[in-house]
């Protein structure tokens, strides 16, 4: 291993990144288009539209990021599996093993490393 540039991931497929990119772009652009929401009506519990619309985007943006995260994590795992030469079966097993904490996301990589 004289060349220190050990690839950490295999080649990317563009589609998952394009979809995730669009979701992220929506989450950035929509809350910034002020003319869309600078109105008092309709009010919600007495709160003007301007205010509750922006607070609503906290949840929408969070949801969009969540979907983007799942898409990118799946692609990321596939790329790491590809470079480490592990079979697709192992990848599926790992993906279904749980979602949640770092130990899981890294479990896939660890397995690859240990081989």
């Amino acid at each position, binding site marked *: 291993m004289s060349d220190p540039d050990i690839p950490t991931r295999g080649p990317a497929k563009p589609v998952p990144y394009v979809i995730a990119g669009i979701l992220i772009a929506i989450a950035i652009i929509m809350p910034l288009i002020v003319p869309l929401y600078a109105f008092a009506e309709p009010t919600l519990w007495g709160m003007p539209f301007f205010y509750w619309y922006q607070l609503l985007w906290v949840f929408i943006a969070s949801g969009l990021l969540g979907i983007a995260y799942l898409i990118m994590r799946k692609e990321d795992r596939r790329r790491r599996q590809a470079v480490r030469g592990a079979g697709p079966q192992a990848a599926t097993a*790992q993906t279904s093993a749980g979602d949640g904490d770092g130990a899981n996301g890294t479990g896939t990589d660890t397995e690859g490393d240990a081989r």
Partner: protein
Amino acid sequence: MTAHLLSLAASAGHLAAATGPDAHGNRPVNWVALIVVIVLFVVVAVIGFLASRWRTDPSARGLHTLDEWGLGGRGFGTWITWFLLGGDLYTAYTFVAVPAAMWASGAVSGFFAVPYTIVLYPIVFLLMSRLWSVSHRHGYVTPADFVGGRYGSRWLSVAVAVTGIVATMPYIALQLVGIKAVLTVLGLGSNTNPFMADLPLIIAFVVLAAYTYTGGLRAPALIAIVKDILIYIAIIVAIAYLPAHFGGWENIFGAADKKLSATNPATGSPFGAVIPGAASFNAYWTLALGSAMALFMYPHSVTGVLSTKSRNTIRRNAMVLPLYSLMLGFLALLGYVAIKAGTQPIDTNGAINAQLVVPQLFLDSFPSWFSGIALAAIAIGALVPAAIMSIAASNLFTRNIYKDLFKKNATPKQEANVSKLVSLIVKVGALVFVLGMDQSSAINLQLLGGIWILQTFPSIVAGLYTRWFNKWALLAGWAAGILYGTIAAYNVVNPATHAHFGGSIAAFPFTSVPVYIGISAFVINAVIATVVTLVLRAFKVKDTTDSTRPSDYGADENDPKVAAAEQSQPPLDPELDGRGTRVS
């Protein structure tokens, strides 16, 4: 209906006058609230001192490397990171200043913080996982480390480091302004004896400095948990109780509209607006976007990011951190609640000080013991970011000024010692700044700091994706952005006081469209960086080498660091083996 509104406002005003300051700004000490604040402060101090023993090997006691002291061992998981970044980004100043701005001039100067913190996280999601990966592989501790490695330019990395340090100092000072607001409404501020008035602040800061020195980043990470619990309790209770108590949101917005649409005698135009008019749309979105782009260029946010244990920890946090935005939105609305409640934010000199609005609202509306909890939350909320900021600024100094310029072969232990020492100096500097200068200069400098830090965005962020820009071009763009931003901010004159640096909105160059100065400066910066790169390329100027590799930008926690990868047999981490066996 109007009569009802007025009588409510009058009675609320009367109530405030009974517990609040007299005409000279002298107010009685609220002992119950003060004792609650002191007790919680002591609890936090004890936690801060114990933090040096948290998640450390007995052999690593004393935290003798920057990775241990300045980045908490680079091992924080999703939840610790959530508290740490939340404590880092939502500062006492946010809690005090955003509602104050709403109270004084309405949505454009205050509520933009909500879209700002919404668009922040998609940006974090995209950028910070890449910065984490490359920093993990190369052992970078600061954003300037990355810029230095990417462009091989000491000048550029020093420019990024100095910008970071200079922009962070007034930010720390503003945390003190937040604590001071709490102490003032508790009755400790007095215009008769300035030393006694400042003494509690000095004590708070000495304790903060001491536990940051011993515990490093672990101290604010632990304290942030306490801070958040207190803050969430205070906000949830306030939002559940206050709107109903003051006649519902409809009446609160009605009162805000009435106050803000009245004509300001100093300017001849309204104080502000509940719903921004078309003239301020561009100011609103550029403030939100520019602030979001700037926030993660601040060294303390990068410190929080690099202390996490994996790439995906940051992405998961980008999904859960928006919970704080919701809290921030409701806090901002407390500014309107205070309008309805007739809160009198009178400072010790007898003048109106909008910064006191939220602490005063809590003190007026709740029993003393509960106000004590809320005020303690604000004060502790200042200690967490102040600690992280001083750690980040001292890491920048150590890595990119001390080590790069003066002592190239500094050992990790020397680095940690320099950082610990500089963190003390930074905090003392901020303290002297707040005690010696007035609050408005701290606020002005913070405003400038935001514009300045945004000028490091092209070097850092473009570098995460492409090596297209030339280092001299980035430096030229940085200088032009800083110069324009400073001049433009100087030229904003406060209509009431006729002071310079009166705001952060100015017309975009060659137009009459008012926008956030930081964004204008950023555009100038980016254009110059692009043009100079093209010119240098046309003249075939040789560029320096890049010590990062494409694979570094996608690395995860189990990928070897570059030093390890360069050895013929990458040593396997024993923990890693253990997990590997468990999995298979």
